[in-house]
């Protein structure tokens, strides 16, 4: 005799909500990818404007990630390891760019980079221009991407027992030596994940960039321009290519950053 197990209604609620969420995210994306004809995609791939904008998107997001890596790593380490007065405040400040509406970010950056601001005047004297430049795009992308890098890497540092660093110090290694021989080898994966997070955030930014630099055109701005000027059909191929390139990059980095399970198991 087969004994039927009674399944709790909550199970069905969970199944329903899971499939709804997955469908909600995947359905529009899949539809968008399959709607343009092969010919449209081929034409878009040959369009130098499209190629330039996608490259610019990747380049500026990558620059923002590199800058975040350089200045965000020591900062994340400090947040993970040291207690100091006002630490909570500093942590909240880091999260601010996540909360602020994107066009506001662009306006805020322009506000200090313009001729009416002393900082803008100094920057112009040394030849740094924000309005309508790659520098400007990288600046806003770093602004919005940095919190993602810092928070990811901070969590990565926190996961490393401080005792490992203590032992290293007691064996004669300086703070710097300890960082490069113990902390970094154990934290580089989280740094890579932080870079991916920062890139992903930066590459999807539109609102802040469009204020600071309509030209040169990053891919989201180009997609928006094609949509408003020519309609949905003309913006889709560019969007598909941007998605394809991003996914390829992120999968690559993700594979590199995954721990090598099989090797660890064999020991």
């Amino acid at each position, binding site marked *: 005799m087969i004994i039927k197990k009674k399944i709790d209604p909550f199970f069905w609620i969970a199944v329903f909500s899971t499939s709804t969420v997955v469908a909600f995210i995947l359905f529009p994306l899949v539809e968008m990818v399959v709607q343009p004809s092969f010919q449209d995609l081929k034409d878009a791939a040959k369009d130098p404007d499209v190629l330039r904008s996608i490259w610019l998107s990747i380049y500026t997001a990558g620059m923002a990630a590199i800058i975040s890596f350089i200045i965000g790593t020591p900062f994340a380490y400090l947040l993970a390891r040291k207690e100091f007065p006002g630490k909570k405040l500093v942590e909240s400040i880091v999260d601010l760019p996540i909360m602020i509406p994107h066009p506001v970010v662009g306006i805020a950056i322009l506000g200090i980079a313009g001729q009416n601001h002393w900082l803008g005047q100094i920057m112009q004297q040394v030849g740094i221009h924000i309005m309508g430049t790659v520098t400007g795009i990288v600046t806003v992308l770093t602004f919005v991407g940095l919190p993602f890098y810092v928070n990811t890497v901070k969590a990565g540092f926190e996961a490393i*027992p401080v*005792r*490992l660093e*203590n*032992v*290293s*110090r*007691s*064996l*004669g*290694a*300086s*703070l710097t*030596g300890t960082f490069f*021989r*113990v902390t970094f*080898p*154990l934290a580089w994966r989280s740094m890579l994940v932080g870079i991916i997070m920062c890139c992903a955030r930066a590459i999807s930014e539109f609102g802040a960039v469009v204020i600071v630099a309509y030209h040169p055109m990053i891919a989201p701005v180009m997609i928006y321009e094609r949509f408003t000027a020519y309609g949905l059909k003309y913006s889709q191929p560019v969007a598909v290519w941007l998605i394809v390139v991003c996914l390829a990059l992120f999968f690559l980095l993700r594979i590199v950053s995954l721990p090598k399970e099989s090797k*660890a198991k064999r*020991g």
Partner: protein
Amino acid sequence: MINIESLRIELPGFTLQDINLSIEDGEFFTFLGPTGAGKTLVLEAIAGIIPITGGRIFVKGRDITHLPPDKRDIGIVYQDYALFPHLSVLENITYGLRYHKADPQESGKRVEKLMVQLGIKALAQRSIQHLSGGEKQRVSLARALAVNPSVLLLDEPLSALDPNFREEIREVLKKLHKRLETTFLMVTHDFAEAMFLGERTAIINRGKIEQIGSVSEVFKKPSTPFVAEFVGMKNVFPAVFNDTKVLVDDLEMQVESLPSDRKGYVAIRPEDIMIKNKMTFGNDFNVFKGKVLDVTNRGPYHEISARTGRVIFKAMLSKSDLFEIGLSETKRVNIAIRPSDIHVF
């Protein structure tokens, strides 16, 4: 020699204070106390890992109070081994060598000798992930000793180990200490460990040192009620003194000697309290008539609570003793204590 003068550490909700200590070169010194007493803080202050609020620390006459940990020449071994997970056994052990100016041949020989002594030579190329707890602790010891530190700090090195490994590593520690000139400082909450390994001990409770002395002295002659309880004297009572007599509540007791610097307590080990049906004691015994309140089976022995007047004594009886006198709760008994077994402080 290690000298600690008025060490003070303030943390939110906890203060370690008045830590004054002298530890001889080559000594095996233990810090004993319950969890949260602040023992590990003392070690971490000596290692230079945590900032201190006040006081000074000297090692061999050198003031190390403000030196960074890498300049202190002090090794550390943790309860959870703290091995570098990304390095092999040998890489872990040789980690510190490059920071110590020594003939590479000589230090290579020392590492080899250490690994042989600790029985981990065969593990050299292994990854540390699949070592047993005992092997990990041996590697951790080898790593700390490879750079030949003048002081080795051991933070509950046996606590995370299975009982059979614990005895094994305990032996290893004892042998290593005998063979090396390094001063060993160990934190533990286990009196038996301190008894087996340590020469002198400091009992720490609530951020203060309660007593410093040889382990057997502390065991036999505790100087505070906390230490008395900690070393297993389950009968600790405040007392009033009158010439050669001692009054605990309204019980009069004969004691062997009355120290002049007493604080006003008596303490008796539960195994020194005899409980019998009949009066079969010599004249020199303190004998009280009482009633059994409670008998608890503690495995190898039974714990008896017996009351006389307002005083409750705790005694230990073996199974056969218990059987012989046929003890049960509410039974009337004679409680006897030898004057020499009553510790006055």
